[in-house]
């Protein structure tokens, strides 16, 4: 059929989406998120560091001389109370080891410290020291120690609480002289495995937990240069923008998609549409494109406002005029596409409620299991980078980032095609899919 008619259908579908209550809620939520988390928080330019200032904040940098003793001390404490802090999927968890694993942990400590088992046992004999749990309060912290973060209202549970320096009640111990840093990290990984992953000794947390050091002027300078030169200011801010909006895009599009897909049945218009000659692929793709393009509007608008605000603070600097637009396209659009497609396919296959529940679960896990920044999994739906800095980390994972975004884009297209197939099957009266939580659905017409 003619392309003109596809366009006409697409326009009608856009209108349906625009007028839907779920879209209005979506747009309001995106604007509110943008306003409270980005617009209000970005309220001035970053200060250029000058030599001779009293301090430039802290930075997590891998310094074996600092990391090894701190991590060892913490491990001894946790071993002694047999209570290990971990964040397996982002939430605080206290792990107690069974006797067998506890023995393995003892072996690790013995190897690190060069102590014998007997010497270690003496540690255990000491009276239980009340562990100060205040630094374990999860769900609170956003920024990592010392590094200036634009905001600390974040979703991620932070694992950065440092144990205090020397604790007087801990008997003396030394790190074995023959212990190399590589071996030490290996042992830490083994300890993390015993705890079940996500502990402070994991690769993910160990540096930020035990190796925070004061930033030097050079480091602060370099960061600032990266912000202003390599990222051309707006690039940095655009990433921060995507960090916040991405959280919303991980879940909200599913509601808009579900309500559009349910509209025909709610309006008892299914049979009228089924009996027209437009192909299922045409109907589904027109709806999908309408959903994605209409839902992209609030993104483009807020990105434009964000770009203008940032540029206002850095007048006279060389800036990337299209940084926000670029990030919106390559960072935000794939998320929007994937979540919309998931909403459509599950609604068509099972029901809208199942789509909401499943997407909700995925959102929850993806959001709380990821770090605030510096981790980009190949398959994580929500990519976070809650910092104006740390460009290096992002760039070192840029391959993952691109893979991730391409993957979700392709997944989205694939799922939409699948939706069209399911739609066509239902249209021809074949009952495929599962029916949960569905009321009033007529599987068998009373004829």
């Amino acid at each position, binding site marked *: *059929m*003619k392309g*003109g*008619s596809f366009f*006409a*259908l697409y326009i*009608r579908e856009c209108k*349906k989406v625009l*007028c839907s209550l779920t879209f209005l809620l979506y747009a309001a939520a995106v604007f509110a998120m943008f306003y409270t988390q980005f617009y209000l928080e970005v309220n001035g330019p970053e200060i250029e560091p000058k030599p001779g200032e009293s301090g430039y904040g802290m930075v997590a940098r891998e310094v074996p001389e600092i990391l090894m003793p701190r991590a060892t001390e913490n491990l001894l404490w946790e071993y002694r109370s047999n209570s290990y802090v971990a964040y397996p999927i982002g939430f605080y968890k206290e792990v107690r080891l069974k006797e067998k694993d506890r023995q393995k942990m003892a072996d690790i400590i013995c190897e690190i410290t060069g102590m014998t088992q007997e010497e270690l046992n003496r540690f255990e004999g000491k009276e239980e020291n009340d562990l100060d749990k205040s630094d374990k309060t999860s769900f609170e912290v956003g920024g990592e120690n010392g590094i200036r973060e634009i905001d600390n209202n974040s979703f991620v549970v932070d694992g950065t609480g440092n144990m205090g320096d020397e604790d007087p009640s801990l008997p003396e111990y030394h790190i074995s002289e023959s212990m190399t840093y590589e071996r030490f990290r290996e042992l830490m990984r083994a300890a993390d495995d015993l705890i079940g992953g996500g502990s402070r000794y994991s690769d993910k947390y160990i540096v930020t937990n035990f190796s925070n050091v004061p930033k030097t002027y050079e480091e602060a300078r370099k960061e600032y240069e990266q912000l202003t030169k390599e990222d051309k200011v707006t690039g940095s801010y655009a990433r921060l923008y995507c960090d916040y909006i991405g959280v919303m895009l991980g879940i909200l599009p599913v509601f808009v998609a579900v309500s559009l897909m349910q*509209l025909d049945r709610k*309006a*008892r*218009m299914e*049979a*009228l*549409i*089924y*009996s*027209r*000659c*437009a*192909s299922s692929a045409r*109907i589904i793709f027109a709806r999908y494109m309408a959903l994605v393009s209409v839902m992209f509007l609030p993104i483009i608008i807020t990105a434009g406002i964000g770009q203008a605000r940032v540029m206002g603070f850095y007048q006279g600097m060389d800036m990337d005029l299209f940084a926000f637009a670029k990030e919106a396209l390559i960072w935000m659009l794939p998320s929007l596409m994937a979540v919309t497609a998931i909403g459509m396919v599950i609604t068509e296959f099972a029901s809208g409620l199942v789509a909401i529940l499943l997407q909700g679960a995925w959102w929850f896990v993806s959001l709380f299991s990821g770090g605030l920044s510096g981790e980009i999994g190949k398959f994580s739906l929500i990519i976070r980078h809650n910092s104006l800095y740390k460009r290096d980390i992002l760039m070192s994972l840029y391959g993952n980032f691109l893979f991730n975004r391409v993957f979700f884009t392709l997944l989205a297209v694939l799922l939409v095609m699948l939706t069209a197939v399911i739609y066509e099957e239902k*249209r*021809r*009266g*074949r009952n495929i899919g599962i029916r949960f939580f569905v009321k009033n659905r007529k599987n*068998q*017409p*009373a*004829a």
Partner: protein
Amino acid sequence: MEVEAGKYAGIKKEGVAGKVGAGQNQIRISGVNKYYGRKQALTDINLTIQQGMFGLLGRNGAGKTTLMKTLAALHKKQSGTISVCGIPIEQAKEIRGITGYLPQDFSMYPSMTVEESLDYLGILSGMDGNLRREREEMLLKRVNLTEHKTKKVRALSGGMKRRLGIAQALLHNPKVLIVDEPTAGLDPEERIRFRNLLCEVAEERIVILSTHIVGDIEATCEDIAIMNEGHILWQGTVSGLLSDAKGKVFTININKKFLAQVKKDYIVTGMLVQNEFTTVRLISDKMPTLNGAEVAEPNVEDAYMYCLYRNGCELGGGAEE
């Protein structure tokens, strides 16, 4: 009743029915079976439907909707063949292009206006802008909705909604129009208007009308089929049905107190209570052994009941539950 394909110039223009062969203005159904799970919904259906009005009569649950949905390519059959104007039913896209369907229970997006709804469905039928506007205007006039075209669908009355339904089904000028129980829930005036509209429409296409209301058939259809429990019990013309029932319908005046007994022994199709006496209309193969029984001229309702009766259908409280 043969009409050349050339008459459907409008469809040709839309490129929807390009593959329709000339002179094949009929629907052929042979040996069709359909199951829902283990339950057999259609059993060995054989029918040929010509241009004009075709009535499908049967009680609720007889399989009418299933058959109609199958004809509209909205249901799969398990065996048998169906061709609509020469197109095998398996070619769903082509079938959808030449078929207009008005389901029993339908509505449209409540927030759209009458105009917008028609436009939307027109787009889904692949019609271009000018043709849509032209047909919309013409059909709205025909179904008497022109002055309501800016009304929201949610503000329409039941009858108006039905008329809008017919307009949408005719929008792409289909060769076949399938309407499922279109008069259910309409007031008598609306019902008559609706029937007349259907008759007009049937002058130029095949119209299949299903109903459990015998009056609809009587007023509109020449050819009919009677369905029961997924079978076709009878097919032919209305006059054929009437002549089958000739001499099998009787009237009798009885005292009220015998009414219960008569109802038990015979199939009663009508009653008129007058003081102590009741005039009863009943069906029987033989002359009833009651005093004063007279042979009556059968109407379609009687004939329909007789058909069910002759085929051994349970006729507890009459055909219309």
